[in-house]
């Protein structure tokens, strides 16, 4: 089956020595996993503190703690980033954890999404009478899983990270105890997530069978040194792993959970799922496919990823247009965004990867901001999400309507917002690879989806009252109780707005970082 033997599995030297202890413990480099540790310990400490304190702590305490923890995690990446820039990428702990610009960048993106979601969650929990630290604990733990996933240099560690990430999010989706749709969302997400995780795990097993290693560096070296006569096992492994990743990033046809779950889950959690979870999923996808299999098996996986990208773009934008529930609409639009990022993956080039990273950063701000507005408009009960509920918002809350307009325009890719450049870089990357048909599809769907964002804007600004007679002079009245904007949520929206616009007007610093992050995307020592 294999021409050259034996596979160059990276083995810890002690194991070769028969006189050594049977179980070798690799050197633990704590600093390499510092961001993940900060998040994890922050979450556990929060749980401990609230268990020990007799009086319930005020709700702002949990949110502040979470924001501080995520900020600390971002700070922890800075010296590491410096180290990577000076000394180059490395992998630690027997080659299982990769320390490079890529993992640090994605860590930053995940932490930003945690900060935004935590700020949104604060007012949300008070409004819904759901005060509890568990939300924040779960979010921090899941973020630590995402960070592990982003820096995993070994398929097993990657799977571990994915499960840490997912299990916490399953629970978060179901946390709104009084809304059955929330519980339904959690259960659905759990069952389907488990189903797709099985695919991923099976894919990992098949890959191990074909290459004799779960270490990404090991796999890459093995494939570079050996030619597989019969590569069926490996290709099946690739296909199954793509199913698992495709599910996590909600790519068509593995997307069907997304609209139901985003709609059912508490809205700040939807924001976190759409931003943070997706970033982690793409990190895994990029590292496994582009870096590990990029040099050798690009011809095989690229068409599959491209097909998922095209399907996601088309289905996402077309289905989004016919939605009448804004949360669902955003879910479908996030599917079409996933299609764009997948295009960056399909380019399988440095430019493609840095474009995907830039997209993830911009997308985090845009989508967290959009779901942030939706959180507020949902009002008590988190149920007012139909397009009708946005009618006349420009009169009732002009500022909020304006901010939402900016987020929607950014998502549709209007110049001077980050959304435009994100799409632009991705399309540029695939054009560089000569994939013109994909670029054409991307531009066409961008045009289609512009329409759906405009529908929401029209509802906010122009639409007359529901069911009014034609030609009626009566202006649209905003229905339902007044919209309150808690300070924390206002801060989150402000941050997201600044991020969205700044990345569109002065993208220079961010693109430099993504370029450096890409350059350091290497596996192995």
């Amino acid at each position, binding site marked *: 089956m294999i021409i050259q033997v034996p596979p160059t599995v990276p083995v810890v030297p002690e194991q070769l020595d028969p006189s050594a202890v049977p179980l070798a413990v690799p050197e633990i480099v704590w600093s390499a996993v510092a961001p993940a540790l900060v998040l994890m310990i922050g979450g556990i400490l929060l749980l401990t503190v609230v268990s020990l304190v007799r009086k319930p702590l005020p709700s702002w305490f949990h949110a502040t703690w979470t924001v501080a923890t995520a900020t600390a995690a971002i700070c922890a990446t800075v010296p590491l980033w410096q180290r990577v820039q000076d000394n180059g990428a490395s992998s630690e702990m027997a080659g299982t954890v990769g320390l490079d610009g890529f993992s640090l960048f994605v860590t930053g993106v995940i932490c930003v999404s945690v900060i935004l979601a935590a700020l949104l969650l604060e007012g949300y929990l008070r409004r819904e009478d759901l005060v509890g630290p568990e939300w924040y604990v779960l979010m921090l733990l899941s973020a630590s899983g995402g960070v592990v996933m982003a820096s995993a240099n070994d398929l097993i560690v990657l799977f571990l990270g994915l499960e840490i990430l997912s299990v916490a999010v399953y629970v978060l989706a179901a946390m709104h105890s009084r809304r059955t749709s929330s519980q339904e969302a959690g259960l659905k997400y759990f069952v389907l997530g488990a189903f797709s995780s099985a695919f991923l795990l099976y894919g990992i097993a098949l890959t191990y069978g074909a290459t004799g290693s779960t270490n990404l560096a090991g796999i890459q070296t093995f494939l570079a040194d050996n030619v597989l006569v019969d590569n069926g096992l490996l290709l099946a492994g690739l296909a199954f792993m793509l199913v698992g990743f495709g599910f996590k990033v909600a790519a068509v*046809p593995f997307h069907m959970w997304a609209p139901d779950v985003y709609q059912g889950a508490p809205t700040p959690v939807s924001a976190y799922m759409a931003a943070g979870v997706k970033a982690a999923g793409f990190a895994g996808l990029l590292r496994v496919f582009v870096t590990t299999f990029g040099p050798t098996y690009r011809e095989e996986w690229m068409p599959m990823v491209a097909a998922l990208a095209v399907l996601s773009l088309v289905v996402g934008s077309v289905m989004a247009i016919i939605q009448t529930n804004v949360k669902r609409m955003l879910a479908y639009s996030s599917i079409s965004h996933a299609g764009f990022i997948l295009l960056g993956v399909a380019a399988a080039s440095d430019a493609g990867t840095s474009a995907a990273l830039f997209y993830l950063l911009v997308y985090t701000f845009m989508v967290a901001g959009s779901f942030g507005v939706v959180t507020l408009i949902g009002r008590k009960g988190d149920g007012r999400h139909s397009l009708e509920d946005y009618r006349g918002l420009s009169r009732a809350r002009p500022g909020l309507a304006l901010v939402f307009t900016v987020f929607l325009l950014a998502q549709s890719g209007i110049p001077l917002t980050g959304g435009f450049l994100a799409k632009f870089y991705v399309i*540029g990357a695939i054009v560089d690879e000569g994939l013109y048909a994909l670029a054409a599809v991307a531009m066409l769907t961008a045009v289609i989806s512009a329409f759906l964002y405009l529908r929401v804007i029209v509802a906010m600004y122009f639409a007359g009252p529901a069911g009014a007679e034609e030609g009626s002079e009566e202006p649209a009245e905003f229905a339902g109780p007044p919209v309150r904007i808690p300070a924390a949520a206002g801060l989150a929206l402000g941050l997201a707005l600044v991020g969205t616009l700044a990345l569109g007007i002065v993208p*220079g610093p961010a*693109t430099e970082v993504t370029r450096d992050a890409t350059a350091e995307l290497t596996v192995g020592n």
Partner: protein
Amino acid sequence: MADVLWLIPALPLAGFVLLMAFGRRLGDPLAGVVGTLTVAGSFVVSLFALFDLNSLPTDERVVQQTLFTWIPAGGFSVDIGFLSDPLTITMCLFITGIAALIHLYSIGYMAGDENYSKFFVYLNLFVASMLLLVLGDNLLLTFLGWEGVGACSYLLISFWFTDEANASAGKKAFVTNRIGDFGFMVGTFLVWMTLGSINYLEINERVHGGIAAGTATAIVLLFFLAATGKSAQLPLFVWLPDAMAGPTPVSALIHAATMVTSGIFLLTRLNPLLEEAGWANDVIAWVGLATALVAALAAVAQNDIKKVLAYSTISQLGYMFLAVGSGAFVAGVFHMITHAFFKALLFLGSGAVIAAMAHEQDMRRYGNLRKYLPITTVTFVVGWLAISGVPPFAGFWSKDEVLAAAWDNGPAGPVMWAIGVVIALLTAFYMTRLVAMTFFGGKERWREPEELPTDPAEAAAAEHEAYEDAPDAHGHHLTPEHTPREPNWTMTVPLVVLGVFATVIGLINLPFGEKVDYLADWLDPTLAHAHEALSAGILAVLAAVAIVVAVVGIAVAWRVYAQHKGSPEKIELPAFEHALYIDDTYAAVVGGPGEAAFDGVATFDSEVVDGAVNGVGRLTQLTGRAVSVFQSGFVRAYALAVAGGAVVLLVFVVMRMSSS
């Protein structure tokens, strides 16, 4: 001076921000004054830029001001920068000049409107975007302005959004323009890929020998597609007549003088590319000509005063494309400038008439208004003579140059010229019809009881029309006792100023030798294309024919509509009234780009609205119908989809397997 170039778009932008923040507090008329002053300031800065540029030697009249690098991406970088050259400054001058006058006019026209300050917010944003469009030193900035003016156009068309027809017209403009935008985007990408830059100066530098003829043709056709959307040419012109639903100052500024000319500006800006583009130029010329003809025929049979002017605008834009396609960029720009003045004048004049006539727009109820509106009448007559091509008014000179350029355009030239002359005849005819029906004719028709159409189909059509015209009516009604009155000074001053310009603006480019060819000299560094001048003899003959044609058109129409000899029905064919059924054909048969897409959207919107009214059941049903098969809500179905996807991927890899 060049370093204050950014002030030109920044001033209206500042006005926009100011009005956005404090507009409601400023109220009526202070918000309008602020809007007018910022645009006037921008005009002053443009004047300084003009003097500044003029002081430079002829071949150094290109000033670039880069504010900062916007997109740094390896070999591809885009600056936020402005380009000042004769073409740009010419555009800036007439945009800011006319915009300032129209702002002033709007102070009076919009007085008492509920959303007074909002109107100026949009109008200022429009001016800022339009200036960005012409001043940007690269395609991406122009695109930004292009989208900006588009957005403002939709917003202003739908300004009286409580009315269904207005909101729909805005959507129609949006959909057709998106088709054009697609051309712009793909064209920009092609330019970037083949020339490695999207900066105008670099494009124009690298184009010679740097691009294959086929690629240049493709790029130019894509940009022309964009232009047909924005500048309302065949096949995408259908939105402009409907856009008349917006307030009249908007029609004057956006849908006559400025935004709709951006397609011509874009092609002129890229003129070195057009030179390489081979047969794409013929496409541009013929499409322009065909549009001009169809629109002129349609204008003959319209009864809504603004619709006549709308079709007339489309027709005149067709002339400009004819000039551009014939390589006569100076003639195109010249006609763009004169047209901006006389068409803005005509629209504002029609606005004054509409305001004086209790917002009635049907010309069949006008007549003999010269008795009541002396200033409006005089200025309108100037505009009428200008557009009809009567010397010495501005339109004659520029139209004459366009027609001469067509004559000179290869073997098909004389045919193009002949069609162009027919269009000139039609133009003189329909404009005379408009003027005669409105200001002359001796009968004050609104005083007569309304005749009820006898034919039921006609009655239905009349009713439909009445409904379409409703937006501007605002609950006013034209009664037989109504006495029209001249509007106040904010509205008449712009009319007089524009009237003066419509008379004399032709002086900037008279065809009497090199010395008086100011515009051609001025634009020369921008337009590298040297056009062989026709001999004076031919020019004189062509001009004489044009004058004769104009006089004939005016005389015939005068006889029919002012002296009431001969019957109008023989001329106003139903086919003309419906613009040769092009719009209707899109809707009914082709399911084509404009109407069908728009209709689909409109239907869907009403479905949604209805759905909400009829309760959740209807909504569920609607959603259910669309997604019934797969998105059922059942976990098993979703799992099946995941498994199905996995199977498809597996089948794919099995086919790619390198099995032994």
